[in-house]
């Protein structure tokens, strides 16, 4: 069996599968479930300064080929999450990625400070939340300048904790946006957050089903978009990428790695494939490397970029 260790901005993972933010990672216990099923690292749900209950239901809705979600930034607040981070370290060996958001640039800094105090292995910055100061509440992540500024603010606070910026596929020229993040001090990129957003309407009650009307699209449907984003980013940066979006099989994960990802984020696949997805992906990757005569993931990372 070919081993699958990867190093993500200096942090060692025994395999490249990472539980994506917002999936299971409400608590140390729920994140530990993914560890028990083989995840190489886990990401907690994004948190802001204050607790938020989020939207009323439905907030998470399977649709053909994927899933819509609009949970409304529900989270227990940075202080409670800091507690979960410490709790997690007490019982799991794998690296923990904390994820933060802000509704203003200042909130990003505030939350980063509280979370970094609990020393997560990595800090992920979710810039896909609406900017309350912008005219249309346009997400920070669509604005290259705002994203670069937030990167700098968070990196200054995080110090030696590696900072990953999580990008939205709706951003134009995602490759140059990633480059801006790298230039602003980011240690890595996570791509992508959910696509769209999308809407599903019940034709009998003639209403949008999600209480928020629309929500981000994730799952197998978005894999090609995610692979393209990772490919473009890989051609523009030298920092590592957590390739996320639509992974349901080992082959999907391979596409991400061939596009240039160092690790692979898994979210909706926990539902569509099942919680065994971490182990299944690792087994598949290992078999592929073995059959093709490679000795590790380093041999193939970004191979699709060579043509």
């Amino acid at each position, binding site marked *: 069996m070919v081993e699958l260790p990867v190093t993500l901005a200096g942090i060692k993972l025994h395999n490249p599968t990472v539980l994506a933010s*917002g*999936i*299971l*990672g*409400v*608590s140390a*216990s*729920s*994140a*530990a*479930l993914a560890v*028990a099923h083989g995840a190489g690292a886990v990401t907690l*749900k994004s948190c802001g300064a204050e*607790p*938020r*209950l*989020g939207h*009323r*239901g*439905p*907030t*998470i*809705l*399977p*649709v*053909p080929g994927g*899933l819509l979600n609009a*949970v409304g930034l*529900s*989270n*227990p*607040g940075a202080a*409670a999450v800091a507690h979960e981070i410490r709790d997690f370290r007490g019982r799991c060996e794998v690296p923990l990625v904390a994820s933060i958001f802000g509704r203003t640039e200042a909130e990003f800094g505030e939350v980063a400070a509280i979370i970094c105090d609990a020393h997560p292995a990595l800090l992920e910055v979710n810039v896909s939340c609406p900017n309350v100061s912008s005219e249309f509440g346009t997400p920070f992540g669509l604005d290259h300048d705002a994203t670069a500024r937030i990167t700098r603010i968070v990196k200054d606070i995080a110090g030696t904790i590696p900072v990953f910026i999580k990008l939205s596929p709706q951003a134009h020229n995602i490759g140059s946006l990633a480059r801006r993040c790298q230039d602003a001090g980011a240690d890595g990129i996570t791509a992508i957050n959910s696509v769209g957003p999308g809407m*599903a309407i*019940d034709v*009998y*009650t003639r*209403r949008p*089903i999600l*209480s928020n009307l629309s929500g981000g699209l994730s799952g197998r449907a978005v894999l090609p978009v995610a692979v393209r984003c990772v490919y473009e980013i890989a051609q523009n940066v030298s920092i590592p990428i957590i390739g996320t979006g639509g992974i349901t099989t080992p082959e999907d994960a391979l596409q991400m790695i061939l596009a240039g990802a160092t690790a692979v984020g898994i*979210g*909706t696949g*926990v*539902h569509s494939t099942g*919680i065994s997805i971490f182990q299944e992906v690792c087994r598949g990757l290992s078999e592929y490397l073995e059959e093709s005569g490679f000795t590790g993931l380093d041999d193939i990372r970004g191979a699709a970029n060579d043509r």
Partner: protein
Amino acid sequence: MTVEMSTYVVAEVSQQADLVKTIRLLDVPTAMPGQFFLIWLPGIDEKPISVSNQTSAGTEFTICGVGPWSTAMLQVEAGDRVGLRGPFGNGFALADNTLLVGGGMGVAPLRYLAHRLMEEGRSFDLVVGARDASSLIFREEFGRWGARFATDNGDLGHVGTVTELLSEMLRLRAYDSLYACGPEGMLAAVRVIADEHEMAYQLALERLMKCGIGLCGHCCMEGSGLRLCVEGPVLTREMLDGTAEFGLPHRDGSGRRRT
């Protein structure tokens, strides 16, 4: 299992108690006792509800008005549409020579369980508790199966808790295992009694659920991380042994631990 949402016309609404109604829907996917569906009331909210019975005449859900969604559900009339996805969760494993212990709204899934046990010719007894006689729903149905009742105020049957009644029953005769559903305090007491008697048990729990499909993590038990919507909501001794929060306050919609 239909993970996608479909809306169904309510075929019938019946009332069991002051704040308790049962809606019947047709052509709902087949479910095991103990499994649940997410029910969407358009414009209001979506919540998990256990199957309270399922026959060729339809699928019933029994709802107690305690908050915004459930109170709005009490206004639903025949002909209205509600959204449904499911069934979700593991459900009860059917067994012989069992004792069913229900409290409050916990009687809803036990009702369907009892129907199925009857159908399969499996022997069981039933003890059911409530605050008072008027809030003791499905009393006639349970009575026909020889249920024994307990009420806090002594209106009907045993004066006191259903767990006292349970202990009494276990002194009278031996059962292979227990099923229980009701308030978590009651379930915690049932567990203690079952441990004393070294009996197997299946307890149906409730937690806040946002997705029903094992993704969001809101229904995960502290300690084990078990997802009540996938690995539960019916937990056995083996499953409960790893959990740290049973019978304790749990998380709210933000994911924060209640204190």
